[in-house]
């Protein structure tokens, strides 16, 4: 029973992959398609991984999507103004870190609920993205070739080209994994999420850790925004908007896999992959786009439902 509870979602994922492998024998489980999937999902993955940091504390960050947009247009606007590529990237990351720290301060010091605080900054960052870009898409000659080339590039390993975006996402995964699973910082984030009162009584510096975690999440969102801009060789003030809900969904999907329902970054990875594989596979099956939406919802619920049922029956 406990098995079913913990591995329900994983079994669901395996089921989805198996189904597509059978239905699309020639195209689904090919190296090229798998690499494509990994690349398509890399931006969402980076946001979801860094979202896991704040969710480990039991918090949320709704502003990641608009932060990704803001970071993208910030870099693009820097390029447009003639600054070199590293300057643009640094500026975007600095904006991400600053925005994330602002979220942290609002939550930890001013004492605003994370949901409200980051909903407020979501609106502000989105407005700022419009102001920075003047509401336009920045593209073409304004985007330096080396910047756009990054997303097209990759590293050749044993005859296979691992896309640069995939590698970037893996890098973020590793960093978050080490942070959460193997440092005192991460363990304290879990302590806050598991029992904030206990953490406070035990002398864990709750406010400082919260601010740091939100800062890192902002940084991650900015990195995702840069990856997105590089991939589409352009930046517009709304392009990150879709990332937020999907990232939270991925973390929650992962949370069904842990005993006490806490978010773990490797579980988030599974959540991200479920979303990506469903999108890719159903499109290849040429399922009608409307029906596809219904199916995605139903399949996610079925995958998670097994886990949930396990919990109920095991009680």
């Amino acid at each position, binding site marked *: 029973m406990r098995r079913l509870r913990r591995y329900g979602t994983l079994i669901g994922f395996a089921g989805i992959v198996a189904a597509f492998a059978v239905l699309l024998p020639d195209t689904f489980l090919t190296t090229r398609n798998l690499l494509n999937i990994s690349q398509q999902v890399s931006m969402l993955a980076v946001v979801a991984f860094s979202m896991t940091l704040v969710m480990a504390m039991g918090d949320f960050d709704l502003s990641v999507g608009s932060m990704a947009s803001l970071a993208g247009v910030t870099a693009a606007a820097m390029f447009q103004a003639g600054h070199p590529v590293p300057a643009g990237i640094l500026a975007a990351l600095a904006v991400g870190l600053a925005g994330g720290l602002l979220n942290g301060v609002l939550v930890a010091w001013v004492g605003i609920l994370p949901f409200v605080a980051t909903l407020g900054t979501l609106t502000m960052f989105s407005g700022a993205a419009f102001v920075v870009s003047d509401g336009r898409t920045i593209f073409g000659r304004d985007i330096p070739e080396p910047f756009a080339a990054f997303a097209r590039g990759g590293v050749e390993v044993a005859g296979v080209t691992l896309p640069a975006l995939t590698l970037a996402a893996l890098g973020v995964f590793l960093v978050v994994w080490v942070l959460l699973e193997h*440092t005192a910082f991460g363990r304290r984030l879990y*302590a806050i*999420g598991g029992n904030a*009162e206990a*953490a406070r009584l*035990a*002398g864990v510096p709750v406010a400082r850790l919260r601010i740091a975690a939100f800062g890192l999440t902002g940084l991650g969102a900015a990195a995702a925004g840069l990856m997105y801009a590089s991939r589409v060789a352009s930046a517009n003030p709304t392009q990150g908007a879709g990332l937020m809900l999907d990232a939270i969904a991925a973390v929650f999907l992962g949370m069904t896999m842990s005993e006490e329902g806490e978010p773990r970054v490797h579980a988030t990875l599974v959540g991200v992959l479920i979303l990506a594989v469903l999108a890719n596979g159903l499109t290849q099956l040429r399922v009608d786009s409307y029906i596809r939406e219904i199916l995605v919802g139903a399949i996610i619920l079925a995958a998670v439902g097994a886990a949930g049922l396990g919990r109920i029956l095991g009680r």
Partner: protein
Amino acid sequence: MRRIEFLGLSRAYGGQPALVDVSLTLAGGEIHALMGENGAGKSTLIRLIAGVTRADSMRVRIDGAEVPLASAADAARAGFRFVHQELHIVPQLSVAENVALGRPLPRRFGLAVDWPRLRAEAAAALARLGAVGIDPALPAGRLTTGERMLVRLAALLVAGDAAPRLYVLDEPTAALTHAESARLFAVLRDLARDGAAILYVSHRLDEVMALCHRVTVLRDGRVALAGPTLEIGRDGIIRAMTGREPRGAARPIERSDAAATAARAPVCRLDKVAAGRLSGLDFTLAPGAILGIAGLENAGQSELLRLFLGEGRIAAGRLEVLGRPRPSGPAEAWARGIALVPRERRAEALMPGRTITDNVVLPHLGRLSRPLGLARARAEARMARDMAAQVRLRFRALGQPVRSLSGGNQQKVVFARALAGAPRLLLLDDPTRGVDVDARADLHELVRGLAARGAGVILTSTDLTELLELGHSILILSAGRQAGLVPAAGLTPETLLGAIYRAGERAA
């Protein structure tokens, strides 16, 4: 000898003083008891010196030197260590991490946690408390209540940044068995012998008399009495706590109460019932009877009580409650007059953020409402006020959140809820945990009164004295099996403990 002085501690909540100019001097090598009725201000004092609640005024001197104490970090730097009243563990983290919570973790390469060392340190601390059965790698969420308390206690004992000078424990034995408590006392005596000061809060007078050198008694947030324990004596402590003369010993058990009603239909009847870990349950509870369930920690006491709520699947045998098959779930149970005081007040009983009224009337809303489920706020308040008076709750307003009550008073709210409907079967799972001596006697009186009016009562307790004071007969559980059913008359805590262990050995 080291002296730690806390001078002029004051703190008010919303204009109501909880502590008024309290001073306390602790000496290295001494175990100092802090006593007082529920709500007297003990936990408040401890939260102030732990730096987790802001004091309105407070000065701290260690060996004459003033030290700052504004945050938990300050307290840690001063070498103060705490076990607070409510069980504060993080279920998601491993036992080892809970033991080290808030301390710097051992590291490798200056970054990654050194797991083997962390576990070894936790295992050593647990071993010192005799808790060798707890695996430091296990998620703490899987532990039982008693084990969780041991984990918190172990946290006192691991090495930290500052050498520990003061250990503070707020009702640590409330969740421990006799054996575990004995172990803890030995460790505390060791720590004191090594020169540490210890501040110890408990409502169990026997413990205090046996363990503590000095005692400070709080009443209504002020120091009522302070001095050497032996000089003051039991009665002196009670007098200082309550401001009244101590009552006589507990009323002798009146078997006539039970006998008068024994003729009527039984409250519940179990016929060779097996369910989950439980087996061989075979007894009848007559109206007016109080049955105590005794057994080692985790012998299945809570599961037994929950059977009557409709929880757990019955694998064999027959269970009848109030003349019918048992209810299908808690909702039906309460509706049929079965009431429960659960074991864990925070996790299983209270809605901490809701008002006293909300907490008391919750299971009785159906009866209190008009047709169409329209609520009657006035009737609800009346019930809450009546019950609060019966259990002698100390509160500011019925509309205050239960969170802001003292621990013992929170427990009384749970009791008030269970007694409110004049239940016909009352299930009590360690019901007076953290309740002061005087209030405990009151609650016992209420339970006896209910039984005298024909209700059946089934009771568990980690405190064997309580079982024997209340119970007419005692059912001994051993690893879930009914190992004996004996009259309480003539048993002493020692003979009962012997019987429990003998049953345990037979089962093994």
